[in-house]
Every structure is written in structure tokens, then in C-alpha cells.
């Protein structure tokens, strides 16, 4: 069954599966997670079924404490409603839950990210005359500001990990940790910004200067492959780890329960 994913790979899992599993594991010990659209959705649902059974999933559509019986394709699916703890208006969700400071982790995807974790999901090219029009902020801008910390999951390439993002939709560590700290304190932000980035090649955290650092390589990935797919000179941890491959149970959950159609893991 695993063959259809990565033919010939002895470990028998895809890069997308590794990314989703690693992202889910990052939620261990977290309590309240705001679930972004796309890849975060499957990662957070996997975490609730594995490392974080007490995780409260918050969907911007207005749901607190979701218990989806199936993986929702959209983040406003009826399965996130039935059996949830609370369904509230979006005014309350964004006002009382998010801006009120109750979200431990905001889990976002991104089209472009820079070394300080600033995110673009708005346009490629000039705003008024875009080469590519992307979806825009949705809730990402306020999640990045108000969630206590931000996790990011995205595929990496020189088009997505760039020296300079074309539009800043969601603030990360701005121009560096010192500036970001000063501005967050002055503005009374509740969020401390980005803390983990999980890609199809590895796991990154942010160092004291607020800059992204490769801390763990996924099985089969190399530092060279990482460097070749990042638009700046990426910092690499001295004690670079190797990500534990997906367990049988993690793969089973992804393949049989969460994404039997392979929409996320192709």
C-alpha cells in the first residue's frame, strides 16, 4: 500500500508524509491550536490523534474544541461542528479567543517566508499588478500577531524561502529579534512570533537573533539539498539532528483515516 506513495523508497513514506508527521509532533504538550487552512489542517488533526490528545482545535470558522470525525477538506466543514465544545460567531472567535490571548499556537501555511519568519500569502510581484494573485491574509495576519507562538508548515524551494518576500501579510521577527521584541512590547502584542518551521526537508527553529536555523534534517534529506532550496545563506545547527521517521501508526492514520485520497500527501 505504501508503494503508491514513494515507489522504491525503502523507508516507504513520502516527503509530504514526513513533513505532516513532523509538524504534528511539534504540537506535543500544546493546549490550544488555531488551525490554518491547507497543510496545517492535516498536521493538527494528526497531532490530536497522536501526541496531543487533549489539544483543543480552534477553527476560524467559529469552532472551539473540534473533534472532526473525518479530515475536513475545508476549514468550515460540518464535521468540525458536530460534537465540538462550542460554536461561536467569527466576531467572538477572532475577538475573544484569538485577540483575547487564548491561542497557544497559530499554525500557518505560507507561499513565501524570509529568514526572520515574515510571511507572504498575498501576491507575487507588485501588489497593484501582480504576477500571481495569492489568497491573501484570511486570518493569518491576526494569528501571527495574537497567537502566543506561530508554527509554519510549507514545502521549501527557492521560490518560497526567499531573501525578500514580495508582500508582508503576517509579521514574523520583522528585521530581527531585537527590533521585533521592541515593537511587540511597545504595541502590546500578545504573540511572541514564529517558533517552528516544518518543511518537506527539515525542521527549523529561530535563534537568538530571530533568524531561522535548520535543527533537524528529515531522513534522506541533505544540507546541500536544503541550501539549494533556500534563497539565503541558511544557518545550520552545530548538533544537527535527524528527524525520526514516521511510525507505522502515524502513517496508518495519515493514509487510512485522514487522507485516504492523498490530497495532502501526493
Amino acid at each position, binding site marked *: 500500500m505504501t508503494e503508491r506513495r514513494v515507489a522504491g523508497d525503502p523507508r516507504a513514506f513520502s516527503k509530504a508524509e514526513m513533513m505532516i508527521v513532523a509538524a504534528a509532533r511539534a504540537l506535543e504538550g500544546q493546549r490550544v491550536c488555531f488551525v490554518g487552512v491547507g497543510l496545517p489542517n492535516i498536521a493538527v488533526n494528526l497531532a490530536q490523534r497522536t501526541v496531543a490528545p487533549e489539544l483543543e482545535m480552534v477553527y476560524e470558522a467559529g469552532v472551539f474544541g473540534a473533534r472532526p470525525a473525518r479530515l475536513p477538506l*475545508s476549514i468550515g466543514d460540518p464535521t468540525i*461542528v458536530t460534537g465540538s465544545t462550542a460554536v461561536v460567531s467569527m466576531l467572538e472567535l477572532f475577538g475573544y479567543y484569538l485577540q483575547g490571548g487564548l491561542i497557544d499556537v497559530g499554525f500557518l501555511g505560507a507561499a513565501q517566508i524570509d529568514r526572520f519568519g515574515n510571511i507572504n500569502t498575498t501576491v507575487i510581484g507588485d501588489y497593484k499588478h501582480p504576477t500571481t494573485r495569492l489568497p491573501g491574509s484570511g486570518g493569518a495576519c491576526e494569528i501571527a500577531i495574537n497567537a502566543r507562538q506561530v508554527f509554519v508548515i510549507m514545502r521549501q524551494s527557492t521560490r518560497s524561502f526567499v531573501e525578500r518576500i514580495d508582500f508582508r501579510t503576517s*509579521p514574523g521577527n520583522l528585521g530581527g529579534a531585537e527590533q521585533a521584541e521592541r515593537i511587540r512590547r511597545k504595541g502590546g502584542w500578545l504573540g511572541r512570533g514564529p517558533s517552528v518551521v516544518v518543511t518537506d526537508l527539515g525542521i527549523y527553529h529561530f535563534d537568538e537573533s530571530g533568524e531561522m536555523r535548520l535543527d533537524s534534517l528529515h531522513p534522506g534529506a541533505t544540507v546541500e539539498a536544503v541550501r539549494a532550496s533556500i534563497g539565503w545563506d541558511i544557518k545550520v545547527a552545530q548538533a544537527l539532528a535527524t528527524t525520526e521517521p514516521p511510525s507505522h501508526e502515524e502513517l496508518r492514520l495519515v493514509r487510512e483515516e485522514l487522507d485516504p485520497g492523498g490530497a495532502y500527501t501526493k
Partner: protein
Amino acid sequence: MAASRVVSKVATMRDAIAALVRDGDTVAIEGFTHLISFAAGHEIIRQGRRDLTLARLTPDVIYDQMVAAGVARKIVFSWLGNPGVGGLGAIRRRIEGDIPEQPLEVEEYSHFGMVARYTAGAMHLPFFPLRSYFETDLPVANPLIRPIVSPYGEETIYAVPPLHPDVTIVHAQRASAAGDTQVWGLLGCQKEAAFAADRVIVVVEELVSDEVIRADPNRTIIPGLIVDAVVVEPWGAHPSYVQGSYDRDNRFYLDWDPISRSEDAVQAWLREWVYDLDGRAAYMDKLGAERMGLLRPSASAPSGAVDYGEYR
């Protein structure tokens, strides 16, 4: 006590759109994934409205269709996509300049910004304050997002202006003939969008008696007081969904992706599914009973009842 003589606001979709949606209007068909009135959007296309400003947090497939049909000159939004699937081709082509004879203006916020705009509209406030937009390019892209200084302690946050749709259209599980409307499941910002609007059309799965509404007044999200027309249109939200009635038709959203990539395919779809049909009943006939059957919930999940008590 004297019985109140209620004037029925029940109308056909055709009559409601003809009477209440005018060229040049700002129209909000709201509903976050849940309860999106595709039926109203299709009727607006059929009646050939022009120069509309279309407001919605997530323009979704319905605004892709409406923009493709040429009803809009502008969209006001916060997230532009086919949720969980991809992009909205008809809208993107017009924004990216691929169809220069149909330019599309954009006015862009974040989700909370849009919700706050409707809320300011509903509350008749000149602005709504929020902690979004710090250190982003959004206030540069949209100069209507403005800083505001707190009168307590010099803190600066951001404000958005009120949004007052000329018409807000919402789909709901049920309403009375007077327009008192009840919803369960995701509430989105329909209440705020309705209170902010000059005119309101409610489209429902089921018309119920006043007694059903009054038996559970905490479920009422929109009072008939602000409703201009009640349209009874079962399945009127397809391919969006109605909690407890039918599922989101994810296959439709997935199928839209390749259609949306081609202007010709979109126009062909509009001919087949909108122009050549005279309304929602014909659309559902064409969709077919088998497809509808697949969208029924797998089982019922009753809420249970609570007791309000009689107090005489």
C-alpha cells in the same frame, strides 16, 4: 393578549432579487463555508445585474461564477480561494489583467478586519478598532486600514471603516414568514452582515411557524424586523452545505478547479448550470437524486431540548 397580525415576506427567488438587488449595489452573500446562497448568486447572474461590488470574507466559487458572468466591478474580501483546493481562476484572471475588458477592483482586509467592518456597520460606529495589521503591508495596500491612538495611555492600534451592504443575502436552516431566522452550526458573520445592511434577503431550507421560532428564542440570529424577503429554496446552498440537512459537496469544489482554470470552461458551465435553467429546482433536478443522496448526513445528531418554562 392580542394576536399580532404578521405580514408574510415570503417571495420567489426571482421576485426577491428583482425587487431588492439593483445595478451598482454593494452585495454581501455571506456564510463562512456553511450556508452560502449559491441560488441567490445564480439568480443575480440570470437577471444580468451589473457593476456590483461583491463583499465576502471568502469570495469562494460563487463569486468566481458571478465575476465570470460579468456582474461585478469590484470585490471586497479577506481570503480569495477555493478552500482546500486552490485558486479562483475567473477572479484571478481579471485581477492579473488577463481579461483587460473586464477589470476587477479589489479592496482587501484580513478576516477579522472584514468581520469588524460588518460589526461597525451593524453598530452604526464610524470605525472598529482591532489589533491586526501591525508591521504588515496591508495598510499600504489598502489605505482604508488606518492607525488609531487609544485615549488611554497612547497605545496605537488599527481601525477599519464600517461596511454597509445595500443588500445582504444569507441562507439559513429555517425562518418564519415574518423573517425571524434561526441557524445552528457555523454562524460566520451573517448576523453582523445582515444588521449592517440596508436590505436583507433570507433564503431558507424550511419555512416554519412563528411558534417554532418562539419556542427557542436563543437560536434566532436575525429578526424579521430587518428582513425584506424570505425565499424558501431547499438545497439553495449547494455546493455549500446546511448543517444537519446536507453535506458540503467537496467533489463540486474539486471539479471546479480545472473548470476555473479555463475561461471557456467557466462560460460553458454558466450556460449549462445557470443561464439554461430557470431556477434552483431545475438545478437540483439536473444534479440528480443520486448525488443528493450522497450528501445526506450519515446519521442524525440531535441537539436535545432545553426547557424555558412558562411564567404566568
